[in-house]
């Protein structure tokens, strides 16, 4: 017992539970009688928390491994947080700054502060409003539809049937594939002359459409691809949410005479709302910033029919070098995402009464 303790020759602050603080040094410890060690003592040595514990009559010193100061806790966060600060938070503030300047990308010293001029320019160009409509169209096509399909597929897959595991893997598979590669597959599927999509329409005696080459159908084509690519992830998230709803609750509803629809409406849907909110938010953020499939499938065309705000931002910043204008666009895009996120959270909360 003495040996354990003598390893530490620090001055120690002993705080017996309840009594007032007193300072003892190493030698003072010997004077404690057995009775004193019955309770645990939290002591502080060199600012790190330790504890005396009496284990089978042997006195042990226990480091409090998980009790740390805020500074010590932060030390472990430094690598991740510095990457985030340097490449995400800092740049986000920087782009906000740029949006108030006439920014000279080649010589930043000669930039002029212009206040809200960039925003004024954005709001008065028709291209921006057009892109906003396209973004909205794309969001409506992917977010509510995607969430609905994901929930539907998840409900189907929650039931046991032959080959359920394979179906689940198959539905998820597109999600892990690169957008460049798989959107190329869909360009071909949506080809107006030789594509599979029109082949299917033809087989059902439906009128064939121009898909990516028609201003009217191009967005539908991109939406179809995006749904195919992304829905699998949401299916698995929904399945996680569904499996956390207790079977007893559902059974109770069933015993009370609820049919499957009522069980869904009164039990599953309200309890699923955190998952639903999460999926809506994540899908919205992904959709607002969708770029790659637009780049490969339509390049924003035909006649700007698929130029979303993200695509416009890319064009303005990296093709036309209108840095300040694009910076203002970026800030607006960010505000749109925040706005949509808040609205969706509210809507789902009111609908489910949470």
């Amino acid at each position, binding site marked *: 017992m003495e040996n354990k303790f003598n390893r530490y020759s620090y001055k120690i602050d002993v705080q017996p539970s309840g009594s007032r603080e007193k300072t003892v040094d190493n030698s003072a410890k010997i004077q404690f009688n057995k009775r004193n060690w019955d309770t645990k003592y939290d002591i502080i040595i060199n600012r790190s928390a330790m*504890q005396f514990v009496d284990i089978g009559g042997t006195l042990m010193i*226990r*480091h409090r*491994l*998980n009790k*740390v100061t805020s500074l*010590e*806790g932060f030390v*472990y*966060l*430094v*690598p*991740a947080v510095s*990457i985030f600060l340097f*490449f995400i938070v800092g*740049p*986000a503030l920087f782009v906000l700054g*740029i949006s108030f300047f006439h920014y000279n990308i080649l010589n930043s010293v000669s930039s002029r502060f212009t206040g809200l001029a960039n925003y004024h320019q954005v709001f008065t160009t028709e291209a921006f409003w057009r892109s906003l409509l396209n973004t909205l169209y794309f969001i409506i096509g992917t977010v509510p539809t995607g969430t609905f399909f994901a929930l539907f597929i998840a409900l*189907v897959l929650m039931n*046991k*049937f032959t*080959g359920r595991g394979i*179906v689940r893997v*198959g*539905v*998820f598979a597109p999600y892990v594939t*690169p*957008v*460049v*590669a*798989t959107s*190329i*597959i*869909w360009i071909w599927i949506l080809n107006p002359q*030789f*594509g*599979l999509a029109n*082949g299917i329409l033809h087989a059902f005696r439906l009128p064939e459409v121009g898909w990516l080459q028609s201003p009217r159908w191009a967005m539908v084509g991109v939406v179809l691809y995006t749904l195919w690519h992304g829905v699998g992830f949401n299916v*698995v*998230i*929904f*399945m*996680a949410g569904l499996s*956390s709803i207790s*079977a007893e609750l559902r059974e109770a509803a069933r*015993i009370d005479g609820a049919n499957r629809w009522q069980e869904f409406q009164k039990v599953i849907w309200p309890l699923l709302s955190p998952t639903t909110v999460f999926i809506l938010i*994540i899908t919205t*953020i992904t959709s*607002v*910033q969708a*770029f*790659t499939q637009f780049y*490969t499938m339509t390049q924003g065309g035909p006649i700007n029919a698929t130029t979303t705000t993200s695509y416009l931002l*890319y064009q303005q*910043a990296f093709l036309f070098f209108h*840095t300040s204008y694009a910076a203002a666009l*970026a800030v607006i*895009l*960010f505000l749109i995402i*925040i706005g949509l996120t808040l609205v969706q959270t509210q809507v789902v909360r009111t609908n489910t009464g949470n």
Partner: protein
Amino acid sequence: MANDIRPESRGTSTNLSIFFKGHLKGQGWFRIFLGWFLLLMFIFPFYWVIVTSLNGSSQVMQYPPTFLPHWQWINYLRAWSEAPWVTYFANTIFIASTTTLLALATSLLAGFSLGVLQFKTRNLWFAAILSLLMIPQTVLLIPDYILMRDIGWLNTYWVQIVPWGASVFGIFLLRQYMLSLPRELIEAAELDGASRMKFLARVAMPMVKPALVVIGLYVFIGSWDSFLWPFIMTQSPSVQPIEVGLASFLGTNGYDWTGLSAAVVFTTLPVMLLFLVAQRQFLEGAHAFGSGLKG
């Protein structure tokens, strides 16, 4: 079939199912049909690109389309010879592996801090890190481009690795796992007088290995699949990854549908193989992310 009884219909409601046996059986078949129809819808495009990549140009231009391959392996040779694919592959593997290692290290430390250590500001930090998900990548393109230019990272490997070396998803998942470490484990380490780093390396890390595998897979695939970032930040094929290479190939050889399809197949094959080998971990990762939402 034993399959048509739903898992939740055991217990009290099983009695009812006797009355509706026929009904349930019908649903079972409907479910199987629906499930397999879904599977077909989701994996058919993969089959389709393989068929296209093995067809001659005359079969491709055939209408109605042909559903069987004609084994024109020449398409693969042609596509392979028309772009520096070996460089693209090597770049991608190098970038994706280093990004993964870096992200694992940073997530492990951060997850340990937010999941095991107890300090006043830890929930604040966690909320701050999660809120980063709200900042879309497109918003950051301009300032990051300027930043990378000013530190001389444009057109390098650095720009493709370091900014992606920390993962919000990774930190989230590891925090969840660390939170669920049994208290006794920490207490035992305390009694042994283990330091925090020793505890992390010897005790916590082996326990959270499944999470590390999941995060590693997601970061690796995410890096492999990324396009917009390397597309903006790099110009020369010598440092560019495979997806940027494939997009350039689409630009130059877009008219050659069979060759393009072949390129799609051989560039996506590694990703697909990795997914098929580790599909359980991929699904578990998404599942853990989904179930951790309320925690």
